[in-house]
Structures are given as C-alpha cells and as structure tokens.
C-alpha cells in the first residue's frame, strides 16, 4: 500500500511517488491510508468496543452481585443485562476474519489477469452468460470479439468447453474469449448450501432463493429482484455483508472486468439469473454504494 511518502503499489509492488494517484506500472489506483477512513479508524473503533465491553461487564458484575445479596430483583436483572451485553460486546467480532480477508485478496491477482487479457485483446463487447443447468454448475462467460448473429447467442455446448479462444461461427469475426465466470465459486457455494439447482427456480422465486442462499453463505441479502418486461431487463438490489473491499478494489483497478463481465458478486447474480431464466444474460450496469454496502445490478436478457 502506498504510504504518505514514497511507497509501493498494492497490486504490483512497484515503487510509487507520494503525489501519484495511479501506479505508473500497472495503472492500479493507489489506496492511501489517509484516504481510507476505515483503515485509520479501525484501532480506535476496537478500543472503544473493548472499553464499552469492559465497562458494562464490570458495572454489571458489581451491581448484580450487590443486588443479589440485597435481594433486589429488578436491579439484579439490570446488572445481569449489563453483564450479558458487556460479555457479548467483548466476545462477538464485528468484522471479517483475517483468513476470510486473505482468501478474498488471493483471488484478486487472477481477476486482474483477466482484466489484462481483456485489455490486451481490446475486447470491448460485454460478456454473455451462457445458460446452464445442474446443481453447483455455473454458467461460463463468452466475451465476443464483435457482436454478430453467431456471437450474440453462442452455442450452449460452450459451457463444457475447456478452451479460452473459441470460434462460434464461420466468419473470422465470430470469435471470442470463453472464461469461467468470476462468480462461479459464489454461485456453486450458494447452490450447495441450499441443495438446489437454480435452473429449477423461476424468476418469480429468485429473490427469496437468492436471499436465503446469500445469507446462508454470509455474503449479504437481496432486497429486490424486479423484471422490466418491456426492456428485457432484470434489476437486482442487494446489501453486502462481506467482500465489500474486494468489490471496491476490483471496481477501481479492473474497470473492464467490472463493466463487461462483473465482479464476483455481480457475476454470481448474473449467473443466477441466466440459470433461473434459461436465457443468455449480459451485464448492463453495476453500481456499488460503498457507504451503504449496497449493489444495484442491471442485467439484460438476450433474445
């Protein structure tokens, strides 16, 4: 991470100057401690939590013990409540574990590699999620070189293909890149936790299913799934409880991936819609409201 003086890039570890906002080598946006209130305030918040917890525990124990011997039940209950809340404040964590954070960070380089691949091949078309069925199976994403009748709806058999560069028609421009979707892991975990295949769930039941699935794997909750029939569009709103840092970093340092294919959570939602509707799906837009931990995803159903 780039410090206040000379530092290094958090992505490629190249040296950066104090006044640089972007890495001169990899182009990633530099995350500075003074610009990240979350990092600077974390120890302060932890200190406050510990102080509140210790205070409530001590007050609760003293008041509870004294009132127990004096036989005053309401005051004893007050002491017990304070003791209970104090112990919970001290015991229950308020953030993701270090292991979870490291796991999320570990997936970052592979996603940045996809970003570089898209950049080098100059692929400007949006990725198309190919519908698939089967529990724990996630749709692949086909990023066409150019939009042609053949590449608009790539063959369903591409979901079983292990190739990266594929040709889907007779013309030279009917080519593209086939990728495992960034949200494949999330989608598979979601289906495993629910023990169901999303291709058997209709769009009408998708909100409830996605909500309970994402809650059970601890990623967030889905607040709404609406279908705009006139525009063949599905809009999903969800609130994140995890992966917010990864989503933000990818949004900043992998704009092509975020806009054309989607970040892991967005990609999982696109894959879920593709499975539930059995239709080709394209990402239209994804807006991350970091302050409210909210993501609004707009998906286009391809006819």
């Amino acid at each position: 991470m780039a410090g206040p003086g000379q530092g290094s890039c958090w992505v490629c570890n190249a040296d950066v100057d104090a006044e640089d906002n972007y890495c001169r080598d990899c182009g990633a946006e530099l995350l500075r401690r003074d610009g990240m209130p979350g990092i600077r305030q974390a120890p302060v918040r932890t200190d406050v939590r510990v102080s509140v917890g210790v205070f409530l525990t001590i007050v609760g124990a003293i008041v509870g013990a004294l009132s127990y011997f004096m036989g005053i039940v309401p005051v004893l209950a007050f002491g017990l409540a304070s003791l209970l809340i104090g112990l919970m404040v001290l015991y229950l964590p308020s953030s993701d574990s270090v292991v979870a954070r490291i796991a999320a960070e570990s997936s970052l380089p592979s996603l940045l590699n996809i970003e570089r691949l898209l950049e080098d091949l100059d692929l400007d078309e949006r990725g198309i999620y190919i519908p698939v069925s089967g529990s724990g199976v996630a749709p692949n994403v086909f990023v066409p070189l150019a939009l042609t009748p053949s590449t608009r709806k790539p063959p369903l058999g591409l979901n079983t293909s292990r190739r990266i560069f594929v040709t889907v028609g007779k013309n030279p421009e009917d080519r593209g890149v086939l990728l495992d979707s960034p949200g494949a892991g999330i989608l598979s975990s979601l289906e495993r936790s629910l023990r169901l295949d999303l291709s058997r769930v209709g769009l009408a039941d998708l909100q409830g299913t996605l909500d309970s699935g994402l809650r059970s794997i601890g990623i967030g909750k889905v607040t709404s799934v609406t279908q705009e029939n006139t525009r063949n569009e599905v809009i999903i709103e969800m609130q994140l409880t995890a992966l917010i840092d990864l989503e933000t970093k990818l949004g900043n340092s992998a704009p092509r991936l975020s806009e054309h294919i989607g970040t892991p959570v967005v990609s999982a939602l696109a894959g879920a819609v593709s499975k539930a509707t059995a239709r080709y799906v394209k990402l239209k837009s994804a807006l991350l409201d970091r302050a409210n931990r909210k993501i609004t995803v707009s998906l286009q159903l391809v006819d």
Partner: protein
Amino acid sequence: MNNTNLFFISYSALAFSTVFALSLFPSVGIDVYLALFTIEFFIASELTSPFSLFERRKRIVVEVIMLAVLAVIVIQRIAQILLEAAL
C-alpha cells in the same frame, strides 16, 4: 453502521426496556427476566442478520448457551408445576 453494532444497540434497547417494564411488577422472579433476555437475543439476532460466516460461527456459541439457559428455566418451571400438582 454494520450489522453487529446494530445488533448490540437493538438488543440493549430490548433488554433494558424489559428491565424497566418488569420492575413495575414486584413479584416477577429473575428467571422471567433471564428467559426474556434469551428470547430477545434471538429476536435481535434475526432482525439484524445476516452476519458474515466468521461472525455467525462465534454467535452459535452464544446461541447454544442462551438456549441452554432458557431450557433450564423452562424445565425448572415445568417441574415446579408438576410437583405442585402432585402435592
């Protein structure tokens, strides 16, 4: 505000308002307070969910303890009623 902080605030509000409300009834025993604290824990927990996987794992320990306390109180009360009926 994250969900854990929201949980603490809602649970504290519920628990302390219970203490205030029940203090108006002098004959209420401490087991009633404890049983209500337990139920309120589960209510606050559900209302402010979801939590991350790590948070939920730690929460399960508290939930088991709370459930055990509630079970002991309920069993004690049932035993008391049965004994009184037998006498």
